[in-house]
């Protein structure tokens, strides 16, 4: 039914202590498309996204079972180094979290971690990625300023550039526009539409209109379960489940 | 390259674990060595009698004067500090709720005062005593220790009151109660377990401190019967007995140290028990 599946989640269950957060999740995420995970708050969207790059490991109470295949390899049961898996996926959080260093080093950080320390190379890459998120002209004269001094919208774009700089294949975005003003939000959305020709994008959002604007594929979640998934057209124009229908009508958030 | 990084992380993880264990071991070492030295020389006589003639040469008697003196001193100063500290902490969190800057300023001052070494309070207390022409006495000791523990008590109670939601204050005021009624009937009751713990903490500090009472409380072999008499205290009795060259007297210092640790331990257990008992009145948010 789908030509290229990038991520396949199979029978995924997640518990925090005794709480059952994710229940039997089976999802397929297509390559080089924007997949939107939506649903009311507290339904487990963010947790599902964080289990994709195993940030759930940070919580000592979290227990995962099932499988997540990325390019056919199960990242929950792999001998591969976890840092390599995470590097494959760029993360954009709800609020921008610039690293406590200057603008230049925010982007250089990921490159240096993976052993690229040549100054000329770094300069080139940093300019390239800052241009890609339309930030270069705004910050080129103050690359040594602390990243915290930028506006929130600029910080979020910096975080996107930072994520792109380590050359990921997948971009995970967790309500990336929820703290931004409308214009910055629009810039981010436009960037996503550009980026999807090269990256697989997974976007968590509870903004229905945002989902309609940019989604190719939609996963609808409710109380830790996947209610329905399919192409954007199927879900928005012809939802099968009652819950999806009432959510789309705006009966609950 | 990657292996080097793994070795580095492993090395530091071991180091971090070791330093954590080191802290725990040090505590047990301290308690163990005091027990080891103190247990053989403790006796009923030690804790039930005041020093008799020749006590400081290793003859008969006990340290009841110091135990009772310390309790008098700590109860007195904790009581005074509570009369002073509880209203202030409530004032900061109820009356001044809209003056955030002022409250933070007071907190800053209190933290500064908390950081002032107890010997400075002792010296200050002594200066005042000389100025007023008072001699070292239980009262002077109580006042000095009170000064010393007020910041501790206010800041600890303040930390307990801080997280009480603003809604509770608004609800109480909108029912027509005055602000001090809100303070004592609502905030005080709601946070009683925490406040008790804070008071106990201050009591522990009061009974354990030696430097502030060195000049102000004096030392005597008798149990004081009025506020104007000098009083012995446990920390000082440990200190004095340990400076003696006579082994029997040194042995008693270890036993006295054991008594002091025991009292501190009882306070900490008691405050935990009381906290549990009063938990019932508390609304959980």
């Amino acid at each position, binding site marked *: 039914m789908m030509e290229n599946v990038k991520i396949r989640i199979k029978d995924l269950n997640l518990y925090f202590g005794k709480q059952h957060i994710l229940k039997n999740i089976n999802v397929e995420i297509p390559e080089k498309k924007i997949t939107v995970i939506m649903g009311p708050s507290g339904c487990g969207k963010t947790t599902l996204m964080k289990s994709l790059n195993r*940030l759930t490991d*940070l919580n000592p109470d979290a227990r995962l079972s099932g499988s997540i295949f990325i390019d056919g390899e199960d990242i929950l049961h792999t001998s591969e180094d976890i840092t390599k898996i995470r*590097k494959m*996926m760029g*993360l954009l*959080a709800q*609020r921008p*979290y610039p*690293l*406590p260093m200057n603008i230049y080093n925010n982007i250089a*950080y990921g490159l240096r*971690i993976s052993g690229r320390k040549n100054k000329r190379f770094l300069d080139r890459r940093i300019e390239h990625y800052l241009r890609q998120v339309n930030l270069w002209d705004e910050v080129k004269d103050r690359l040594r300023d602390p990243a915290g001094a930028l506006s929130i919208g600029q910080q979020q774009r910096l*975080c996107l550039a930072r994520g792109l700089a380590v050359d990921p294949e997948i971009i995970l975005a967790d309500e990336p526009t929820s703290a931004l003003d409308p214009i910055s939000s629009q810039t981010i959305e436009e960037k996503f539409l550009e980026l999807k020709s090269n990256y697989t994008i997974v976007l968590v959002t509870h903004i229905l209109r945002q989902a309609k604007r940019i989604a190719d594929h939609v996963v609808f979640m409710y109380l830790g379960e996947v209610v329905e998934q399919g192409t954007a057209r199927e879900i928005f124009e012809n939802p099968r489940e009652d819950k999806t229908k009432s959510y789309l009508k705006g009966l609950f958030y | 390259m990657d292996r080097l*990084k793994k070795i580095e992380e492993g090395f*530091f*993880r071991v180091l*971090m*674990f070791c*330093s*954590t264990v080191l*802290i725990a071991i040090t505590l047990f*070492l*301290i308690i163990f*060595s*005091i027990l080891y030295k103190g247990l053989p020389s403790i006796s009923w006589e030690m804790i039930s009698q005041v020093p008799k003639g020749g006590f400081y040469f290793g003859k008969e008697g006990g340290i009841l004067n110091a135990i009772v003196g310390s309790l008098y001193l700590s109860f007195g100063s904790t009581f005074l500090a509570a009369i*002073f*500290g509880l*209203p*202030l902490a409530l*004032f*900061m969190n109820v009356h001044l709720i809209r003056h955030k800057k002022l409250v933070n300023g*007071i907190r*800053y*001052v*209190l*933290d*500064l*005062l908390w*950081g*002032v*070494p107890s*010997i*400075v309070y*002792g010296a*200050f207390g*002594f*200066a005042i005593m*000389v100025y007023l022409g008072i001699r070292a006495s239980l009262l002077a000791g109580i006042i000095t220790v009170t000064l010393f523990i007020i910041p501790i008590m206010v800041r600890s109670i303040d930390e307990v009151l801080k997280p009480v939601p603003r809604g509770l204050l608004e609800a109480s005021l909108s029912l027509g109660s*005055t*602000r001090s*009624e809100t303070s*004592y009937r609502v905030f005080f009751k709601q946070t009683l377990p925490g406040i008790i713990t804070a008071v106990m903490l201050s009591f*522990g500090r009061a009974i354990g401190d030696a430097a502030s009472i*060195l000049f102000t409380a004096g030392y005597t072999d008798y149990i004081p019967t009025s506020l104007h008499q000098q009083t012995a205290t446990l*920390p000082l009795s440990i200190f004095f007995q*340990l400076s003696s060259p006579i082994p029997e007297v040194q042995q008693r210092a*270890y036993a006295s*140290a054991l008594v002091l640790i025991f009292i*501190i331990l009882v306070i*900490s257990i008691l405050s935990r028990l009381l906290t549990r008992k009063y938990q019932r009145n508390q609304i959980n948010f």
Partner: protein
Amino acid sequence: MSKVSLTRAVRFKRIQVSRHLRDKMNSAWMLFTMVIVVVMPLILLIGLYLKSAMLLNQHSIFHLLFSKEWKPLSGEFGFFPFIVSSVWVTVVALLISAPVCLLTSIHLTQYAKKWVLSIMHPVIDMLAGIPSVIFGVWGILVIVPAIGNYVAPFFGKTVSGYSILAGAIVLSIMIIPFILNILIEIFKTIPVELSEASLSLGASKWQTIKFVLVKKAFPGIVSAFGLGMSRAFGETIAVLMVVGNVTQIPTGVFQPGYPLPALIANNYGEMLSVPLYDSALMLAALILFVVVLVFNFASRLLIVRYERHF
């Protein structure tokens, strides 16, 4: 009928009046306590200054701070040996406790399992609650003989063990719970998303701690150490019991020293019988107070600034 309601109204009014009177009185007392506490540092400062003014009128403060002569009977009060001893003890204590606190706080906030926390929480609390005289007793029982019999001979020295090092070790243990609690608090306030950001860029957990968390917490770490130092600077009884109390300028950790608080505590007995002696000891207390105040002030300023950045 009307009479009943009248008395009820009167009674109600009376209750109202007494309630508001009580409110006024309570509030007045609260205000009073606040004023007292706010002016307290000033009162301490003035009180100690008035008592030490007699000495300050006779000698310049510069002379007092840097003179090496301490002969109270002939009116010579040079604080230099005591100040140097205090600095030695404090700095060595910090050098011991700083790495231990930093490593432990990272372990407890980033790696430790729940059961480790459930042990370490009461351990830190108890360590903080032990009276300083007990630390002194323990120092005499364990640290002093250990230095005299093992550590110093290892370095080829023959000493009694009562030394700067003994004072510093005892002090370092006393300030560990204090510094540790601040550090744990600081590491806890760093949002987990910052670690997530670093991890998702391919950094390992240790790299994240080293390059991101410690960097983010840096101002807080510095001020925690500053507060720890000021705490160590004023600690009296425990240090006094193990440091040796010899009036000299120490040049190594195995030598005895005589820090400022010990000077005050040891000589209160004679201070009224020698002219100006009491004034000198009050000046020592004043120096302690000012140093501690400055350290506290600077560290807390740093911490407040740092909290504002979040």
